[in-house]
Structure formats: structure tokens, C-alpha cells
């Protein structure tokens, strides 16, 4: 059970900022992901949380090679992605899949559900003919809670929650081991979110899947994840097991983040102490020096402005990069 399936080491994804019409000069760099490391064990759900601009979506997509990494390494099921041959990469694509946030944009509007769900099977030459593949597609639809008879319909005939389920069916089509869930429920209504999350959990139990769950909804992350990593401006600032992170957050950003999450309990919500951060999230083009959080940090010290804090294990299996935490 503790076998590691996914290892990410010092992954970076930078985008150049170019100016000029004819000859483009590089005037800056967007450091969307600036050196993150983590690992995910088989059967585990790792949550990757942070606010917009922190780089979590870019991290998820770069991990799968959808965006070519600037540097760093990603190993999935023993295969190192950056040094993989074309054939090996195709094999990884079968084992590692992704579910997207936007149920309206992630399905080709001109394809039938059948084509969408059988595409992975065709690309990886699973099963021997189209008929068998369609049969399997129908099974997958049933597995995600949709009526198999809808297989020849088009995406626009489905609601957001249903389209998301189609996306899940597609992700399952190649029998993957690992699925990156890129904010899969953010665009859905509350009651539908619960349905989709329950579905993901059921599938995990049934099929032994491993998830990287990228989200900004901290309540949902607490519910579904085993371990959680908090990102800020392209870096991971804290990682811990689920309850440990929520009950004992060490990094000031995590603390502020958690205190800002609304609680549907009026007395509790009124009674809590809020850490309200000032200012907006700075841009990833010019991250602050030293600890990137220092301009907004309520307990920033002199050293925070100049020295990047070390990533260390402050409590058992609880890692932080912050000068104030020992």
C-alpha cells in the first residue's frame, strides 16, 4: 500500500514574457511553478490547494507532460517522463489520466459520447473492434451513474454534472492507475459536487485509483484527501496528513487560508478569529525575494525578506518552509 506511484522532484514550469513585434525579446519570466516536490503512494489521494495564481493547475498539467516542464523530474509508475521515448510516453498516457474543471470545454462538442469515451481505447488499441469498445463505453457510463442508452448523444444535451461524469468515464477508459483531478467540481452546484465526489471515492475503492486532487475549496479537500500540500506563488509551503494540517497548520499562509474558509455554522463562524491577509496575491513574474509570502505575512521577520526558508520536517510527516517554524 505504501508503494510510491508518482514522484515529482523540483518541477519547474516557466513561461517567458516576450515583447516586440518582429524580433521578440524576453523581458521577464512567469514562474508559474518554481520547484515543487512531492510523492503520491498507490491508492492515496493527495490534495494540492492554493488560490488562483499559485500554480496548482499548471503543476497538475506539467506533471502529466501536457505542458513541457522547464526543469525537474516526474516519475510515474517507475517511468521518468522527461527522458521517456515516444512509445514510453504513450504507455504513461494510458496509465495517467486527467479530469478537467470545465465540463463545458473539456468535451469536444462535435463528438458523440461514444467517440469521446472510446477515444482512449482506440488510441491505445484496447479491445479489438469498435463494437467491443462501444460496449465497454456503455459499461463505463453505467459505472459513473449515467444511462448507457445515452451513448450516442452529444455533450450539449447533458447538464454540467453529467458532462463531468462523461469526463470521468473517459478518464477511466484506458484503465489508468493515476488520475489528476484538476478542480473537477468547482464549476458545479453544491448538491452535484457531493454526487461527483462520492463517485470519485467509490471508483477509488473499486478500482484502486490514485488521485492528485487539485482544488481551492478547502472544505472539500479535507473531506476527500489523505494528505494535503499547500501552494503559494509556485512553491509548496506546507505538506501534512489531512487532519494534522487542518488541526495544526504551521505556515502562516495556511493558517490565514484556513481561517478564511467560511463555516456553515453561524455561532462558530462569528466566534472564530480571522486572520485577514492584506493586499492581493503578487504576480508570479516578480515573486518577492526571500520567503515569497513575507509581504503579506502577519509575522514576517527581517530574515524572511532575504533568505528563502528551508523545507524541513517540523513534526512527524509534516513539512513546512517557514523561518518561524522549527
Amino acid at each position, binding site marked *: 500500500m505504501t508503494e510510491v506511484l508518482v514522484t515529482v522532484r523540483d518541477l519547474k514550469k516557466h513561461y517567458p514574457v516576450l515583447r516586440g513585434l518582429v524580433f521578440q525579446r524576453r523581458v521577464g519570466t512567469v514562474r508559474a511553478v518554481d520547484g515543487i516536490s512531492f510523492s503520491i503512494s498507490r491508492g492515496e489521494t493527495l490534495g494540492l490547494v492554493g488560490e488562483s495564481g499559485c500554480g496548482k493547475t499548471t503543476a497538475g498539467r506539467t506533471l502529466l507532460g501536457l505542458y513541457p516542464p522547464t526543469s525537474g523530474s516526474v516519475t510515474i509508475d517507475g517511468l521518468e517522463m522527461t527522458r521517456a521515448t515516444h512509445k514510453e510516453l504513450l504507455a504513461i498516457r494510458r496509465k495517467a489520466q486527467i479530469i478537467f474543471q470545465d465540463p463545458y*470545454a473539456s468535451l469536444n*462538442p462535435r463528438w458523440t459520447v461514444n467517440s469521446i469515451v472510446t477515444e482512449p481505447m482506440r488510441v491505445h488499441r484496447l479491445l479489438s473492434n469498435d463494437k467491443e469498445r462501444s460496449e465497454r463505453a456503455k459499461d463505463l457510463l453505467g459505472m459513473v451513474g449515467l444511462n448507457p442508452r445515452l451513448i*450516442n448523444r452529444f455533450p450539449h*444535451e447533458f*447538464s454540467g454534472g453529467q458532462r463531468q461524469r462523461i469526463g470521468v468515464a473517459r478518464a477511466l477508459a484506458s484503465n489508468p492507475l493515476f488520475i489528476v483531478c484538476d478542480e473537477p467540481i468547482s464549476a458545479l452546484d453544491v448538491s452535484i459536487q457531493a454526487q461527483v465526489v462520492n463517485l470519485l471515492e467509490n471508483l477509488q475503492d473499486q478500482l484502486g485509483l490514485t488521485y492528485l486532487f487539485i482544488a481551492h475549496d478547502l472544505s472539500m479537500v479535507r473531506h476527500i484527501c489523505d494528505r494535503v500540500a499547500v501552494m503559494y506563488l509556485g512553491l509548496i509551503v506546507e505538506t501534512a496528513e489531512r487532519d494534522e494540517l487542518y488541526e495544526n497548520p504551521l505556515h502562516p499562509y495556511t493558517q490565514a487560508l484556513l481561517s478564511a474558509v467560511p463555516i456553515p455554522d453561524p455561532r462558530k463562524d462569528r466566534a472564530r478569529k480571522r486572520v485577514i491577509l492584506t493586499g492581493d496575491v503578487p504576480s508570479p513574474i516578480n515573486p518577492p525575494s526571500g520567503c515569497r509570502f513575507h509581504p503579506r505575512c502577519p509575522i514576517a521577520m527581517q530574515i524572511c525578506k532575504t533568505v528563502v526558508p528551508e523545507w524541513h520536517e517540523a513534526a512527524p510527516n509534516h513539512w513546512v518552509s517557514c523561518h518561524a517554524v522549527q
Partner: protein
Amino acid sequence: MIMESTSPNQLVALNMEGLDTPPLTLSQLAWRRFRRHRMAMFGAIVLALLFLYSFGGSLVLSESYANHTDTSLRIMSPSAEHLFGTDSVGRDILARTIYGGQISLLIGLTAVVIETFMGILIGALAGYYGGWIDSLLMRITEAMLNIPEIFLLIVMAKFFGGKIPEIEFIGRTFSGSVIVIVVIIGITSWMYLARIVRAQFLSLKENEFVLAAHATGTSNVQIIFLHILPNSMAPIVVSATLGVANAILAEAYISFLGLGVQPPTATWGNMLDGATNYLESAPWLWFFPGLLILLTVLSINFLGDGLRDALDPRSRAI
């Protein structure tokens, strides 16, 4: 708008009502929208009639009749025997407009096939791959845009004139100059479509369903032609439709300059050329071919308008 709840299309899936009704494809929705556009339907009907006239008319009047000269009958105004009158060498204008129409329309259609094919190929590759491929292809496109069509025409007409053999098609023999015209119009008109297709690809390739295809492991070629291209059809169809009108006009003014298809083969364009000396004295020489060109171009434009509205996914009136 404000409403975000279920739309009727989604009802089918949600409530399992009418599970046996056939799926409503996007094309069917588009057709419904198109039907409501009266100008477009009018254009479509007129265009159909024009095709009927040109291709059906050949069943009534023969080509030899259209080319039959009789100088004793020259420049006669419209009469019972010659409904559109006769031209400067005594040929029946009505018959000539029929056969001329065939050529003009055919030139329009085939030129569009060439330009659409080239436009899609170049636009798709440039938009999808970006980088130096895009730069190279776009510089070529811009270079072509700067070359005047007439200049190219003159050069190619001089160079290829007489060297391309005749071809047989639908029972008629077309001189090599027709092919030259078609090719020239085709290779001087693809640039507009290429830019449009490139723009479509630039925006569509960032869509999540394309990313999903990458994640699945789908090859680039399949992504270009099976994923992105079907979603770019709207501007391509509209462009191709309007391109037919442009090609017909192009043929008209090429021929009017005397560089196009040479008589005795008739085209609407060279009939106009033949009327230059008789503009006031024998208006029927230019009136009928001109009217036909006008009707064709207008109806194609109406049709194109309707198609554009019907295929625009933003007008989700249905």
C-alpha cells in the same frame, strides 16, 4: 443570460424523456436556425434556379447552337426567336448565357475547392504548430496577399496560355484556359481563409478538449483533423460559399480584360467584354450576362449570411 438551469436539450438526458428521439446534432440545430432566415432561403432558391438554368438549359439548347454565328442576324434586340437578342456575330445570347453560366459557375466551384483546401492546410498547420512553421507560412501568406491578382494572371496567362490541353467534362470540351483561370483564382484566394483558419486553430487548440486529447495520447494529425477542424467548420463553410461569388466575379473581370476564357466559348465575363463597344447601342449584350452575375453573387451572399448566422454557436436561440 441569467438562466443557468436545464435547457430542453438537457431534458432528454435528465428526465430520460424521449430517449428514443434521435439525438439532436449541432448541424440539425444549425439547419433550424437557417430555415428561419428568409433572405438566406431566398438566396438558396434563386441559386438553385440559376444552376437549373445553366445545367438544365443545356438539355434544351445545344452548345453548337450557342456558338453558331450568323452575321446576318447580328445585334438584334430581343425577340420571340431570340429572347435575349443576338450578339455582335449573330449568336443567340440566351443560349450563350446558359453555356456561359456553366463555365462561370464551374469556375466558381472548382476555384473554391482549391482555395479551401489550401487555406485549411496552411491555416491549420500555422495555427496549430506555431513557432517557425507559423512564421514561415504567414510570411508566405502575406507575400501572396501583396501580389496583385491581375499581374499574376497576366503572367500565368501568357506563360500557360495554349500549353494546357483541353479537357472533357460533362459532355463538353473545355479549353485549357479554363483550367488556368481556375488554378489562378484558387491560388490567389486561399490567403483569406488561411488567416481565418489559423485564428480558429490558435484559439481552439487551447481548449480543454484538445488538452484532453493530448492527455489521451492522440496524435497531432488526429487532433488537427478530427478534433479541431470539425469545430472550425462554420467560418470555412461561410468563406467557401462567399468564395464562389468572388471567384465568379474574378472570372468576370479577368475575362472582361480579355485575359480569360477566349471566345467562341462563352462565359458571363467574356460576354461582358464583347459588349464594350455596344454599351449604349445594344444594352442587351451586357444586360443579361450582367444580370445573371448580379443574381448569382447576390444570392450567394444572402446564402452566406444565413449560413453565418446559423452556424454561429453564439446565437444560441435554439
